[in-house]
């Protein structure tokens, strides 16, 4: 019975009540939701990109067991993995202003909280989240490269840095690519949480459009296909890159 108020609302607006599912209406919402697709994709790729950088640095710290930093990184990864994304988003959203005010009070700086777009809060939260997961992926990929490869580098007098850049990391990246792709795809979908800090992304826009007509199902069908479409494209791109990266591996007989 809970949909009755909505039904009455629809009647008062004079919208067609007869159709249970309205494909025409559904298609008509696409132009309203589509303009927010670049924002969603941008947020996802930005966060995944920054996450990759964070994850890579954390993985290096843990791979080489750099003192103190290793402990900090472990706590960071553990915290991010042990708390919900939504909570992290709120922590960043409410935490950064407090941090800036604290800085202003302490050092007499003049950071303005109001000047920060919501997109930045979301990107910071998502990057930190993504970075933690990616760091574990990259670290385990680095560990999967045979120790003999590094020894061979040393035996021909390459430095650790050269060995990493030329030999170890390219091999590790090949191993890491599929799970990193997973993280990217997760990120695309998790950006839909940005609505919770009032950032109007694709999901938020769908909700807004839906609330005008109360035909939520139709708009969510539209938005689900948009997310799916993005993810299919990413999958295709990744498998293309993976094939190229694996060209030195022995192929399996089909």
């Amino acid at each position, binding site marked *: 019975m809970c949909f009755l108020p909505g039904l009455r609302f629809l009647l008062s607006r004079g919208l067609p009540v007869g159709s249970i599912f309205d494909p025409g209406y559904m298609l008509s919402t696409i132009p309203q939701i589509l303009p927010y697709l670049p924002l969603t994709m941008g947020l996802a790729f930005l966060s995944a990109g920054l996450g990759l950088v964070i994850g890579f640095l954390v993985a290096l710290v843990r791979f080489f067991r750099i003192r103190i930093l290793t402990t900090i990184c472990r706590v960071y990864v553990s915290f991010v993995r042990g708390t919900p994304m939504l909570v992290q988003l709120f922590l960043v959203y409410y935490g950064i202003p407090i941090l800036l005010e604290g800085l202003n009070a302490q050092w007499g700086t003049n950071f303005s909280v109001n000047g920060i777009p919501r997109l930045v809060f979301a990107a910071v939260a998502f990057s930190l989240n993504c970075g933690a997961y990616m760091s574990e992926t990259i670290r385990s990929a680095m560990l999967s490269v*045979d120790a*003999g*490869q590094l*020894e*061979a*580098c*040393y*035996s*021909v*007098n*390459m430095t650790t840095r*050269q060995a990493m850049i*030329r*030999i170890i990391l*390219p*091999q590790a990246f*090949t191993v890491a690519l599929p799970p990193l792709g997973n993280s990217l795809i997760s990120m695309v979908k998790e950006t839909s949480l940005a609505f919770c800090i009032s950032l109007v992304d694709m999901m938020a826009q769908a909700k807004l459009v839906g609330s005008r007509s109360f035909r939520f199902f139709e708009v969510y069908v539209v938005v689900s296909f948009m997310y799916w479409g993005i993810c299919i494209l990413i999958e295709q791109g990744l498998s293309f890159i993976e094939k190229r990266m694996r*060209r*030195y*591996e*022995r192929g399996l007989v089909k």
Partner: protein
Amino acid sequence: MIEVHGLTKSYGATQVLRGIDMHIEKGEVVTLIGPSGAGKTTLLRTLNWLEKPDAGEIVLAGNTIRAGKATRQDVMNLRTQSAMVFQHYNLFRNRTALENVTESLIQVKKLSRKHAEEMGMNLLGRVGLQDKRNEYPSRLSGGQQQRVGIARALAVEPKVMLFDEPTSALDPEWVGEVLAVMNQIASEGMTMVVVSHEMRFVRSVADRVLFLDDGLILEDGPPEKIFERPLHERTRQFLSQANLSGV
């Protein structure tokens, strides 16, 4: 060419090297034999500083390196003079045969790509693999991989070449081609230290055999002497068990 004094190394409570002293002349081919766990591979790897000894000193081609006091520069100097051939080849998997050889020429010796590739092709020629230059290691047979490994080590232009059981991971039919390359290098006067139980090689090429047992050099002498008139009962026991005596 190589002087080793009082080299020791432990892994936890296990003492792998218990005071190794040895002296190897320029151009000598020395093989290390002994039961597994005797410390042969560890000794060889310390000569390339892939293992850090706990105590002792190595003088290799005039460069002295002391355990505990080795600077980065010492390690670099040591590694410019010695090159390692690994049991499991350890070729760079993401590099072609030619790139495996040129990698150190370009990265370490800073040669131009063109010059490096010329030298690389020369070295691949010496191991008879010029036609495989563009193959990745995964497409090469074990014997071919090991020959690329040797070419890669030669690219360092070392004074000493270290071989860690270079043929023990190979199918019998590929052992010959690797040994032929090693014989060739030996005949050119390279100083070589080889961990190997490959009798064909030990008999035909080695000038000296060192028998290691339990972290110490137990016997030292020309192959005929070690195999036919060993000083120690332990050596005789090992040789008969390993089917090496009187072959």
